[in-house]
């Protein structure tokens, strides 16, 4: 982490604005609703301001992604309590056309599955899926070994698969 003076922290808003679309996108992909995505994004912005007053992360984008994903997961859990029995409805296979309700339900199930894995696994999966980073780039950003990143990726993907199992048409 790099220490910055109070005057340098005034650039914190500018840094966030450069990544605000990405922050919003990560939040929306997990929450599926613009209103919730905006709430999550504003929460992340306030946390970014508080963080930047202490120390500025060396990789602001990675920091913002991690915090956004965690915040979106928290909002998702707060919005609806976990109820596996209520989630037993069958969903069509992903290749079939989905209406808006089905898309929202699938997105919710995927987000819940992502929320069930560890923070590191979650970060790797989001970075790989939605940011298109390579394993080497993710490893450098998260300060992990490349094999560890690949393991996290597979475990997160397996968790999502297992959570969605039975919801696809046979």
């Amino acid at each position: 982490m790099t220490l910055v003076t109070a005057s340098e922290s005034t650039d914190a808003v500018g840094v966030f604005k450069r990544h605000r679309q990405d922050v919003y996108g990560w939040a929306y992909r997990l929450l599926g609703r613009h209103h919730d995505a905006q709430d999550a994004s504003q929460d992340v912005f306030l946390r970014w301001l508080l963080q930047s007053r202490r120390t500025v992360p060396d990789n602001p984008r990675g920091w913002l992604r991690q915090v956004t994903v965690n915040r979106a997961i928290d909002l998702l859990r707060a919005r609806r309590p976990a109820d596996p029995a209520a989630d037993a409805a069958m969903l069509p296979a992903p290749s079939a056309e989905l209406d808006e309700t089905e898309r929202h339900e699938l997105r919710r199930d995927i987000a819940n599955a992502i929320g069930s894995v560890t923070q590191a696994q979650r970060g790797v999966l989001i970075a790989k899926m939605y940011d298109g980073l390579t394993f080497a780039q993710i490893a450098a950003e998260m300060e992990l070994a490349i094999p560890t990143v690949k393991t996290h990726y597979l475990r997160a993907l397996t968790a999502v698969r297992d959570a969605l199992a039975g919801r696809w048409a046979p």
Partner: protein
Amino acid sequence: MTHDQAQEMLADYLGGELDESQKQQFEAYLTGDPALAAEVDSLRRTLAAMRAIDEPVTAPVPWDGTPPARTDDPRASGADDRTVWKHGRMAVLLRYAAIIVFAFGAGFLANAGARGPGVTTPSSVVEPAPKNQDRARQWETRIAVAYAKQPGRSGLARSLVALARAAREP
């Protein structure tokens, strides 16, 4: 290719990081390993499901990353003028002004009581009696001490709190 080698290539295959020859080599191996082929197929379908509901996301205008509006601002919720007068900033300022007037009025009355009933102060008298000078100096000291004990607050807030604390002291 061995099973272990194929397992090591699994993350790269799913993550799209194999070159064409490696990809063909991996897929050729899968034809002879049904268990691994099924695993790969289920994970590929999971990725497809996640991509199927993914879409370009743009933060709605005019949100630009600024903090949310004050929740105590009634105008933000479309309140009418009467509500604004009752709960808005003008009402807060008027309350502050009333407190200041009350505090000074209480101090004035305290000084008047100290002079005793029936005693009038000629308009030519400039210097207060010695007893009132001590009381005035006591007030000034109390207020100054209370004011100095509040670093970080606005001038108005410090003044009001200082007046309140000075009035509470015996």
